Structures are given as structure tokens and as C-alpha cells.
């Protein structure tokens, strides 16, 4: 096997649409039509998505080659076969949707420049390429698939209980398409700032600081237990002539649901894994991407592959029920996609074997459990004591944490637990509750400096 190297960014070139220099930024925004970005909400007002996270991920290159809110041609390509108009694979619609009232108030037309404001401050600009209508429910249904159209992996019709489906269903029916440029780069609050490593910088760190030739990505939205740790360590034995040099943990940070762990505990919990030597920091690094998780299992895995390829990973580990909620998809839908493809979603072959597909290599992993006979955390394809298995369960651990019982170290590292307790003391609660949500939804993960825009 030839030695591997950091793959090129998806689409060939890393997108970077961020202007730090104030005078250029101001001149770009001068005279633009202002629009305050708003969250997408459920009918009861609960925020489930904020488009600012997509603007950040696009402009800093996590979603390369996507450069902004999609045109109707891009949208149709994505819904029909998970391809942009230029042919590159991309799984999800990325859209700036606005209500009829807002559209009317803005009086915007194609060719105009918009100034997008966040938390009352200038944030990004966009040149309007197209304004068009969508049927949000149709976009939602086609994004995730149906049992009839996608019989390979869709098991149940998507409905109001699916958080990702609701993100699209609750969108406004007007889309403003155009490329985004950030003109007032937001500052991440502690502890997010420590883990913010956009693709260009991440590639540089991997190449010149960590000196990893190969690197496997680990997707997370959870505080790690030792089952996750075993997955990371063992998946990393793949590589080329030797195991992967690095493990890149990339947390998805976005809209939260009650009962989740706080973002802060997730990031610092993973950091504890390297800080306390369970996987040395020379081999393990924690980062995040802003994205309101769509829970699209195979569809989500495509986005994960794109993000981590852009960040410089050679491999990506995929487990059972990857980025899943409920029973909408086959438990192995992601692994089916990455081992043989899903034709109805536009993949006659795996996403890394199609034209204009990904370059990242999948590592499909089965399960880890504790086996009392083996006396260790065992891999399901090794351990023959199936009837004795003791499965790791995130919710079982959450129950233990809530009762104030310190999980045994064979299940969760004490330093990881301490990260949970640290933020528990800050929020007076170990998990996301109403107050945490109100606070996150009002303040987001960032602050923006005041910026005066000269009148045209």
C-alpha cells in the first residue's frame, strides 16, 4: 500500500471568505441593505437552528466548496442526487431563508448587496444572485428521503419528531441565494475559543505542528465514555503502513436539546482524554464545527466526511447509528453508504469512489462493549461471549451522573467526569435545561465587536 498524505480540500480549493481588515470590511458593507439574522423556530418558539452557524462554517471553509446560500439549481442538485450544480458531492441544502414580511421590508432584488447582522452588529455581506420560493416541507422530505423513494435505508417516514426534518420544515418559503463573506469575525467565548480551528489552520497544525501524515476523524456530540475512547483508539489502528498518526475529535456544536450535555463539558471532556494521557496530546486533538445537527445518519455522514477532509483528515470512523435519532434509518445506513453506496441518494458506489466525490477513507466500525469474560472492553467482532456483553449506554451514564454517582473509571475516566462536574457547578445542572437553552439561544457561542458602517 502506498503511503497516504493529507487529501486536498473537497472541491479542490479551500473556501476562505473572511475579511479581518476593518477598512475593507466597511467598504464592502457600505450602502448594503441590512437584515438581522433570526433563528429558525418550532411553532412554540423554541429555536432549532441559527443560520449564523452555517455562515461561519461556509466562510471558514468547513463546507468547501460551498460558498454561500444555494441557488435553486444547487438546491435541486442536492435534493435529487446530493450534488452541487458544479458536480461536487454535497448532502444538505444550505439556505438563507426569509419570511414574506422580511422580504417585503428589505425590498431586495437580484444584484443587490445585503448586510447580514448578528446580535445587532454587522456580521457578513452577500451579493444576491437569486431570490426564489421553496416548499419547506418538500425540501425537508427530499433531504432525508422516504421509505418509498429510498428503500435501501429509510425505514420510517420522517415526521415532526425528527429534529433535522423540523429544521427544514420550519424554514421560511423565500430563499435568498448568494455567496457570503464575513466582515466582522465573531470572537468565541471561553472555552470555545480554545477549540476553534478552522480548516486552513487545522491543516497547518496537522502538517507542521503535529506532523501527522495520516489522521482519523472522530465525530462527537457527547462527553466521551471509555467505549468512545476504545472506538477512537482501535479505529486509529487503520492507516497505511502504520496506524494513523493522529486522531482529530470534531464536535458538532449547535442547537441543543434538553438532556444533552452542555457544549462546554463535551469539549473539555474530550480534552481531558488527551490532557490526562489516555491518548497522548501528540496524537489527539479536539476541535469543533458550528452546525445545527440534522441527525441525517447517512446524509449527515457525507457532511462529516466533507468537513473532516477539509480539516485535513485522511480517514473517518463511522459507527452504528451514526448521527442518528429514532428508527428512521437502518442502523447501518451510514456503513451501507460507505461500503457499497445508496443509488437512490445518488451513490452507485461509495462517496469516495464516485466522480467529484470525497477523498477521505471510511473506517466502518462495529461495536465495543465490556466483556466480563475477556475482562476488558471488547470489540464485538472479536468477543465470542455475546450473551455476557455489558453494553455502554450514554443514557445509562447520564442517569448515573444525575444521581450523583461517580461512574467507575472503567466506564468513564475520572477527569472526564470532573469536566462534567465543573460545568455542572457553573450551570447548577449537569445537562442542558431550559435556562441553559435560553442563555445559549440569546448569546450564541460568540460575541461581535461593535462596527459602524459608513452610509453609502
Amino acid at each position: 500500500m502506498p503511503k497516504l498524505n493529507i487529501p486536498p480540500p473537497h472541491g479542490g480549493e479551500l473556501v476562505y471568505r473572511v475579511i479581518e481588515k476593518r477598512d475593507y470590511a466597511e467598504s464592502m458593507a457600505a450602502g448594503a441593505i441590512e437584515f438581522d439574522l433570526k433563528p429558525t423556530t418550532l411553532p412554540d418558539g423554541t429555536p432549532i437552528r441559527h443560520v449564523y452557524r452555517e455562515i461561519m462554517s461556509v466562510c471558514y471553509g468547513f463546507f468547501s466548496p460551498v460558498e454561500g446560500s444555494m441557488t435553486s439549481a444547487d438546491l435541486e442538485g442536492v435534493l435529487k442526487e446530493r450534488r452541487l450544480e458544479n458536480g461536487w458531492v454535497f448532502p444538505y441544502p444550505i439556505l438563507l431563508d426569509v419570511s414574506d414580511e422580511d422580504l417585503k421590508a428589505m425590498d431586495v432584488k437580484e444584484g443587490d448587496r445585503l448586510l447580514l447582522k448578528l446580535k445587532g452588529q454587522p456580521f457578513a455581506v452577500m451579493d444576491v444572485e437569486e431570490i426564489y420560493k421553496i416548499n419547506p416541507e418538500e425540501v425537508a422530505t427530499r433531504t432525508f428521503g422516504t421509505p418509498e423513494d429510498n428503500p435501501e435505508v429509510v425505514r420510517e417516514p420522517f415526521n415532526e419528531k425528527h429534529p433535522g426534518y423540523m429544521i427544514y420544515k420550519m424554514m421560511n418559503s423565500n430563499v435568498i441565494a448568494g455567496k457570503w463573506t464575513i466582515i466582522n469575525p465573531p470572537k468565541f467565548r471561553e472555552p470555545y475559543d480554545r477549540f476553534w480551528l478552522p480548516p486552513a489552520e487545522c491543516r497547518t497544525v496537522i502538517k507542521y505542528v503535529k506532523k501527522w501524515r495520516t489522521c482519523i476523524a472522530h465525530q462527537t456530540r457527547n462527553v466521551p465514555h471509555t467505549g468512545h475512547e476504545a472506538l477512537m483508539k482501535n479505529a486509529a489502528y487503520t492507516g497505511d503502513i502504520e496506524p494513523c498518526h493522529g486522531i482529530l475529535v470534531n464536535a458538532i456544536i449547535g442547537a441543543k436539546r434538553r438532556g444533552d450535555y452542555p457544549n462546554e463539558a463535551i469539549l473539555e471532556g474530550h480534552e481531558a482524554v488527551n490532557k490526562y494521557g489516555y491518548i497522548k496530546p501528540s496524537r489527539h486533538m479536539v476541535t469543533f464545527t458550528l452546525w445545527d445537527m440534522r441527525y441525517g445518519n447517512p446524509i449527515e455522514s457525507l457532511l462529516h466526511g466533507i468537513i473532516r477532509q477539509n480539516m485535513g483528515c485522511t480517514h473517518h470512523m463511522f459507527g452504528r447509528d451514526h448521527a442518528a435519532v429514532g428508527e428512521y434509518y437502518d442502523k447501518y445506513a451510514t456503513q451501507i453508504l460507505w461500503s457499497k453506496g445508496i443509488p437512490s441518494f445518488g451513490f452507485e458506489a461509495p462517496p469516495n469512489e464516485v466522480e467529484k466525490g470525497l477523498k477521505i477513507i471510511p473506517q466502518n466500525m462495529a461495536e465495543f462493549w465490556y466483556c466480563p469474560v475477556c475482562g476488558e472492553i471488547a470489540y464485538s467482532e472479536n468477543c465470542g461471549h455475546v450473551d455476557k456483553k455489558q453494553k455502554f449506554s450514554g443514557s445509562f451514564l447520564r442517569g448515573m451522573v444525575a444521581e450523583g454517582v461517580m461512574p467507575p473509571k472503567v466506564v468513564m475516566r475520572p477527569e472526564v467526569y470532573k469536566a462534567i462536574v465543573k460545568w455542572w457547578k457553573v450551570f447548577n445542572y449537569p445537562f442542558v435545561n431550559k435556562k441553559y437553552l435560553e442563555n445559549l439561544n440569546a448569546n450564541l457561542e460568540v460575541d461581535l465587536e461593535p462596527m459602524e458602517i459608513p452610509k453609502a
Partner: protein
Amino acid sequence: MVHYIGVILDESRYEQIKGTPIEEKVQSIFGGALKMLVVEVPEDKSEQILKAFDRARIDSRGFIEDVPVAFRRAVFEEIVKNKSLDIIDKVLERLPEIQELAKKEDEYIPPPEIE
């Protein structure tokens, strides 16, 4: 299908069932690092529990999880009181009271004292 509720036994809880017929039902998991009791819950009753608590769910092991702490406490209390694991009906009788307590715990759970 039968579902389960796992009751974790820390030292003080273990003391309360020591010497009772329940002691022999204690399961040791994760290489002896954790002791627990497992209560069986018939499907119609697990439905009732899922309905009573909006975040409750059945995990991949068939255990009812993400239930309020007040509910878990009540399960343990009934086990001690009745010296039996066949107590789910007794717990369900207390549902209104447990739901009241659960509301309070939505906003505050005291953090453990660790350094």
C-alpha cells in the same frame, strides 16, 4: 417485550439491602466496578412510564433511561420497603407525586462534592 430499570447501588444503598433477600439479586457489572439491581417492567407499564416523562426512552439494551432522579429514588425506596423487585405497580401508584418532584429537578440538581 419486557423492559428494565437499572438501579445503581452505591455504598449507602447497598447497606440498606444487605442481609435481605434482595442481596442475592444484586448484579455486578463492569468487572465488579458497579453494583446494580434490575427491575423488570412489562411493556404496558413501560408505556405508562414513557408517557409520564417526556424525555424517557428505551435504550439499545432495553433499559428505560433518561427518567427523573426522583423516579429512580422511588424505585429504590419501594425495593427496600417491600424487600422485592416486583414493585413497579407500587411505583406507578406514586406517579403524580414523582412528577411533582421531577418538575423541580428540571432546574436544579445539586452538584456532587468532588475536588
